[in-house]
């Protein structure tokens, strides 16, 4: 299986085109991005996709930032194939969407030119979380089918399974799977990402701590200075008093809660001063390390409802974008943030303008429940059009399916077998 990549493509909307683009995206969403003109269901390894518009804004010094169209995708590698398919398979939709942007190559021209245009507008993520690293779309779909087949098998009349013989029940199930040619793959472990990629990740796993170790004298000397400067900056921050308008809330809610999961995107300015910029860079650097090597299987620091998430610095580190796909409602998502990963939210978003005040980077912030929820809603960007390859599966469902498949291999004690049967 390939590894997963977070692709962000951002292009400046041509002057005056925002209303037309917005209307066009809403229309496209009504038909669903799985169907033509996007045909996203035919793109190989595409888990999720979102289109949204970042309205024109001004930075802290009042310099204008023009409106832009953002396309984010979560896709199985390689990116080269993905870009080619975006233009080749989804071309009609991509042409129409990015046709509202400045300088998009005229439709009907060479596809290589359009791929190059998109590639030039790709923005690097500071960090990108994958629920389970290396679990590709094909595997997710196969394992969902496996579970359904086993559930139907269990429901077939005529079974008489003794409650005290779980090992025998499991053996029966394995025999059934082995006898189904379409499920034979389930008895083998899922393929892993390519060796070369894994080697590079291993080098990163070891290299970063070595680098930090080598720099530790300087870091240790600088740390107290930085902490004091940060604390001084924090004490200057006011409370987050802005409340989202009813119109903004209605707009956001109108595209939420249709299925098992929701798309999420927030964007905002980074606070003034080099201390904040440095802090944000350092936090993203460590976040990148953590999501690549620590939170690699179905659990982001206690939150098990996130499929993908990315932190993207924009406009030369003047702004940041956070985008994710999560299970449940925005209320439950926010509550998870507050109750489980407040410290992580504070460390990253605490550097953003309008966020409730933090103390020593990690404390306060999200624990001001109402201010935090308002602040996220105020900075949340409506996602008018988005795509999911598995609208009814939660991240926990996907993980459970993988455990069912894993449990088909090897020997088990009666207690282990009973626990595995409990997954069904």
């Amino acid at each position, binding site marked *: 299986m390939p590894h997963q990549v977070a692709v962000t493509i951002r292009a400046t909307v041509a002057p005056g085109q925002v209303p037309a683009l917005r209307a066009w995206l809403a229309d496209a969403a009504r038909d669903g991005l799985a169907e033509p003109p996007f045909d996203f269901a035919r793109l190989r390894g595409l888990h999720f996709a979102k289109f949204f518009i970042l309205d024109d804004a001004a930075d802290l010094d009042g310099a204008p930032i023009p409106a832009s169209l953002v396309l984010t995708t979560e896709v199985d590698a390689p990116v080269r194939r993905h870009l080619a398919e975006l233009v080749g398979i989804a071309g009609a939709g991509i042409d129409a969407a990015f046709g509202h942007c400045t300088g998009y190559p005229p439709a009907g021209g060479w596809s290589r030119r359009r791929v190059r245009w998109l590639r030039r507008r790709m923005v690097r993520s500071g960090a990108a979380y994958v629920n389970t690293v290396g679990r590709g779309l094909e595997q997710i779909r196969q394992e969902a089918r496996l579970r359904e087949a086993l*559930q139907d098998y*269990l*429901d077939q009349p005529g079974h008489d*399974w*003794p*409650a*005290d*013989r*779980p090992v025998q*029940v499991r053996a029966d199930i394995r025999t059934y799977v082995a006898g189904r040619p379409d499920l034979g793959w389930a008895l083998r472990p899922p393929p892993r990402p390519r060796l070369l990629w894994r080697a590079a990740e291993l080098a990163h796993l070891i290299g970063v701590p070595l680098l930090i170790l080598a720099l530790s004298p300087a870091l240790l000397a600088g740390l107290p200075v930085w902490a004091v400067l940060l604390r001084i900056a924090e004490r200057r921050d006011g409370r987050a008093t802005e*409340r*989202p308008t*009813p119109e903004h*809330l*209605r707009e956001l*809610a*109108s595209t*939420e*809660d*249709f299925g*098992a999961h929701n798309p999420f995107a927030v964007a905002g300015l980074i606070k003034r001063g080099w201390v904040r910029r440095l802090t944000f860079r350092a936090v993203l650097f460590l976040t990148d390390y953590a999501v690549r090597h620590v939170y690699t299987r179905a659990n982001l620091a*206690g939150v*098990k409802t996130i499929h993908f998430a990315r932190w993207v610095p924009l406009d030369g580190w003047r702004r940041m974008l956070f985008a994710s796909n999560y*299970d*449940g*409602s925005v*209320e*439950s998502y926010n*509550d998870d943030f*507050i*109750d*489980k990963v407040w410290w992580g939210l504070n460390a990253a978003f605490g550097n953003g303008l309008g966020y409730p005040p933090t103390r020593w980077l990690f404390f306060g912030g999200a*624990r*001001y*429940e*109402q201010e935090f929820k308002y602040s996220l809603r105020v900075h949340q960007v409506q996602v008018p059009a988005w795509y999911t390859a598995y609208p*009814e599966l*939660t991240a*926990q*469902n996907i993980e*459970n399916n993988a455990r069912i498949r894993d449990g088909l291999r090897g020997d088990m004690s009666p207690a282990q077998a*009973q626990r595995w*049967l*409990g997954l*069904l």
Partner: protein
Amino acid sequence: MAVTLDLDDIQGLVARGYGQLPAARFTAFTAPHPAAARALLSRLLPGITAAGPFSADSACQVAYTAAGLRRLGLPQSTVDTFAAEFVAGMAEPNRSRILGDVGGSDPGGWAWGGPQSPPIDGIVLGYAADGSTLLRRQVELREHLAATGSRVVADLDTLELADAEPFGFRDGISQPIVDGLSKSAGAGRVVAAGEFVLGYPNAYGQPTDRPLLPAPADPHRTLPRGPDGRPDLGRNGSYLVLRQLAQDVGAFRRYTEDATRRPDGSADPAARVALAAKMVGRWPSGAPLVLAPDRDDPRLAGENDFGYHHPDPLGLACPLGAHVRRMNPRDSLDPRPGTDASLDVNDRHRLLRRGRSYRTGTGETGLHFLCLAGNLARQFEFVQHTWLNNPAFHGRYDETDPLVGGHHPAGGTFTAPAHPVRRRYRDLPRFVQTRGGGYFFLPGISALRYLAALPGGDDRPSSTVTR
């Protein structure tokens, strides 16, 4: 903890469900114009029951919708500082998706409170020791309404309080113990008063957001003062959720009976009750399955001091998706199931339930579900969406609450974990439908006085001032 609440300024329903007043009737009304709305409230005010010591033979409460607050003359800019869900209203389409009010429960078909039914300003909740006392109070209420040109929009009768709800189960056992309110404090976990009464610290130790007015808006200092000396219109108030939930008793009985027939096709009453109990999570007596897994045990009828995780992590006794385990998962869920960390998160999603059963003239039976909450989104809507109607609750796939859930159109699923393999029940019909409902605000007594004395507003008939 141990916060001191201003009980004389809090409406009594927050402190008690009026168990000693078995007769009740809820009357939704609308007033023709602001002056009339205020005149009506002024007439009602002397009869409004507060939360202090109580021994009378009747009680009366009043709560308002966002439209009703506007009708009283509260400016739109102030109304917008109430909770967004309250201002939007229960029948708004985005709320309907969150609440599962779709298909047969769509507000378009509601008897009251929906887009097709007349707008509601507020609701009077009348309670009495017996039917004749209730009738006398109703006559007084009708006089007040008639004298102010106000109209009854919905008249919600309730059944005399009984031991069981229509499906045959004892209800209302698990209520949060509220700091500063509950007599039984000291036994079990105490939930912060601010979770149910505005103006006090909530479960995060912070006051929940509420309408604070600019000082000039309250020149006579009718309202309690909030932070920075601002008049606090929310203090001692609470959000009130009312929903008419029709229960299809026949369908529930048929389903559980058909699913448990013996091989020869005959009904098996004991197995039927056992399946119904699996769906509910308690036996008809109220005994929790987690303590009485195999048969009903009336000695455990009122038992509420238990957890799920340690005795039953897999749901073998009480299924993970059972109704009461969804309504109040206790220590079942992340973070760290079985610990205080799990209970702490659970405590942020509690409801103070005050519902009463009903039967209409046409034979429809069900529950006038009524609950109080300080934060509609985090408490009532969260429970409704993330716990009851969530197909993926607690690691499930495609099953909502077996008893009250809005199932997949093709029919619901219910899984009862068992050894060696689970038992799966398919094709559950929807047993409970929403027939009406609304979000209300139950103001403190001073806030009611303030609203009754508001200046201004106009005299246009009601149909033109609704937004």
